[in-house]
């Protein structure tokens, strides 16, 4: 079913004539995103987390602090702040099905515009949910989640809100940085909600140590690739 839907979306994009990306059969999400081919990944050389599972966009409206907080705190689907979705799972929001897609990005950032557009979904006035799992070999105290996003975004680590940035903005590395937090040994769930107004949409995320150096000593899993 999932595969069929992806193929259908791809076919629709190509058939619409607006697709400018050379979409290969195994790169359904644009030039920088692809379905994961391994069970686990590592952050890149600068610590950026490149594996995420993303939900197809939800329509919202507003980028101010209060608007975004209201948008991200609204319950769209069950277990919204605890679920670790699987690739291809579907949730129903307002009577419409939205599919979770596991992706690897080849860049430091995750291009949500490519993601949505490749699926034939809206890119403006939308909310993207993203989840990943950071697997730590040992407890890591005093680290910070450092994120950037276009546009506003709110982030949670193991269920606790860690950082939020608001307003119409472009993605800047380490734009919003959390207070010092502790990553526990084993899996840690990182969750984000990115709200876009119009135009490009993307985000980036990494963890920094007490000296503001990127942390790479963990693995990342999302969407149970190759399950």
């Amino acid at each position, binding site marked *: 079913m999932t595969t069929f839907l992806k193929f259908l979306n791809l076919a629709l994009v190509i058939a619409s004539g*607006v697709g400018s990306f050379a979409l290969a059969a195994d790169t359904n999400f644009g030039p920088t995103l692809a379905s994961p081919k391994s069970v686990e990944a590592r952050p890149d050389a600068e610590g950026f987390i490149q594996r995420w599972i993303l939900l197809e966009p939800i*329509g*919202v*409206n*507003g*980028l*101010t*602090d*209060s608007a975004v907080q209201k948008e991200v705190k609204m319950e769209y689907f069950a277990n919204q702040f605890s679920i670790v979705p699987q690739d291809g799972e579907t949730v129903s929001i307002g009577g419409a099905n939205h599919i979770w897609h596991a992706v690897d990005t080849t860049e430091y950032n995750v291009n949500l*515009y490519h993601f*949505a*557009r490749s699926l034939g979904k*809206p*890119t*403006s*006035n*939308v909310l993207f949910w993203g989840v990943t799992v950071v697997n730590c070999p040992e407890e890591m105290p005093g680290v*910070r989640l*450092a994120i950037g996003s276009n546009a506003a975004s709110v982030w949670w680590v193991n269920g606790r809100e860690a*950082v939020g*940035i*608001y*307003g*119409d903005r472009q993605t*800047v590395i*380490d*734009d*919003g*940085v*959390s*207070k*010092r937090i502790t990553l526990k040994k084993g899996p840690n769930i990182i969750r984000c909600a990115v709200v876009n*107004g*119009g*135009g*490009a949409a993307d985000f980036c995320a990494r963890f*920094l140590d007490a000296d*503001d150096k990127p942390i790479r000593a963990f693995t990342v899993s999302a969407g149970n690739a190759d399950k």
Partner: protein
Amino acid sequence: MAVLLLVPQAFALDGRVQIHDPSTVIQCDNKYYVYGTGLPCLTSDDGWNWRQGTSPGEGRGGGLAPDVIHIGDRYFFYYATGAAQPKAEVRLLSNKTLESDSPDYKWEDGGIVASSDGFEDCNAIDPGVFLDPTDDRLWLTYGSYFGYIRLVELDPKTGKRLHPGHAPYNIAINCEASDMIYHDGWYYLLADHGSCCQGANSGYNIRVGRARKVTGPFLDNMGIDMIQGGGKLFAGSGGRVVGLGHFGLINLGDGVQFFSCHYEADLDRGGASVLDIRPLLWKDGWPVAGENFKAGTYQIESARTGTALELAVEGVPVGGGGRGRRGGGGGFMGGGFGGPGRTNRPARGSGGGGMFAGRGGVIPPQDASQVSTNWPDGNIEVRLANYMDQAQQKWTISAVTNAGGYLGSPYFKITVAETDRTLAATDDGELITHPAFAGDAKQIWCIEQLTDGTWRVMPKSSTGADKSGNGLALSAIGSSSATLEKFNPESDRQRWVFNSP
């Protein structure tokens, strides 16, 4: 708990600060010491509030314009005697400690290290001692308006003269109160020009030249040798203080330097000669006299990111709102669910219409009374944001009495302008604002100017008793996030600019 009051005006230091011809300010056992003509001692626990200390001149009939340096386990103390100037002598005392209550406190006479015979072109007063950081050789400059400023080498082990048979170097002329420092490959000779000792009519000012060798030639910014009267102005009179002289370096390391001096007359203290301590800056290879922080209302801009420290509340656009958003809304490149966006671009060149025409009239500055009704009542976070004329970015910084201080300044509180909401450190090294100021050390701040002219901001609770400056400092850890982190002099993270709104 002591009642903390706002200081309406910041003076040059607090407490007993009357002194003339001060030595370099020096630390011993976590106290600061400075000595002047007549060999009085002033001492301070924090560099802000001063009191009378124990004079090393007792039984010695006083002395002139001393200088002091700490090398190894000894303090070398140089002072001049000269009842019949220009016949004069520079003499040495040494001690293991400057703390008069210590059992080790005992001045030892080291004899004469330099002199003038009353006929030669030199008046051997105003010693300035300098340890060359490049080779640990110790030097003494001395002299006054009578002839040359001279340089002789000293033994860093004993403080006494090396090679007494060698003729001194002549390095400047017709100045006094000389002192030497080293910075980034240059030796700098600082010395006073102008008239001394005439109260509010004194013309004292500090001039500087620089050389690649410790022996000179010391040229000013126009290439004029100080031995021909050259000297770039470093600092002089200004405001309510007249006649600035007797430079002394206080180097805290990590890009934090101060200098000590006296004003011949502080008009707010009845024209008395007083001590001051000010930031030392560097610009284009020359030392520049900085100013201690002045109370006022500011926007606090990160030198790292250019974003401004703000209360983490939703800003209200000045003048009532924006013009829409770049990047498109519904229907722009891919479509959307609808909503605001740049879907109706205004016509250009209409000469007064459209969304770029403004709203007419003067838009007044925004203050907290206009927008704070929507702010939460309890603690509120802080963050960095695009620099705006908005109330949550305006901070009133006020000196606090009975809270002590640091070199040159009292501690300050930092509140959102027109409110009592106070910036504070948290126990875990983060930032928060409290609804009101209560005088807690986490709500009191040290604001020091760095050598590049930017500022370092540290909570009193983390400045440390050793005055090392190794505590936590306000830090921009991202374009939109601020925290407290250990100060790193190599980074812009902890450098801040204070701008008037």
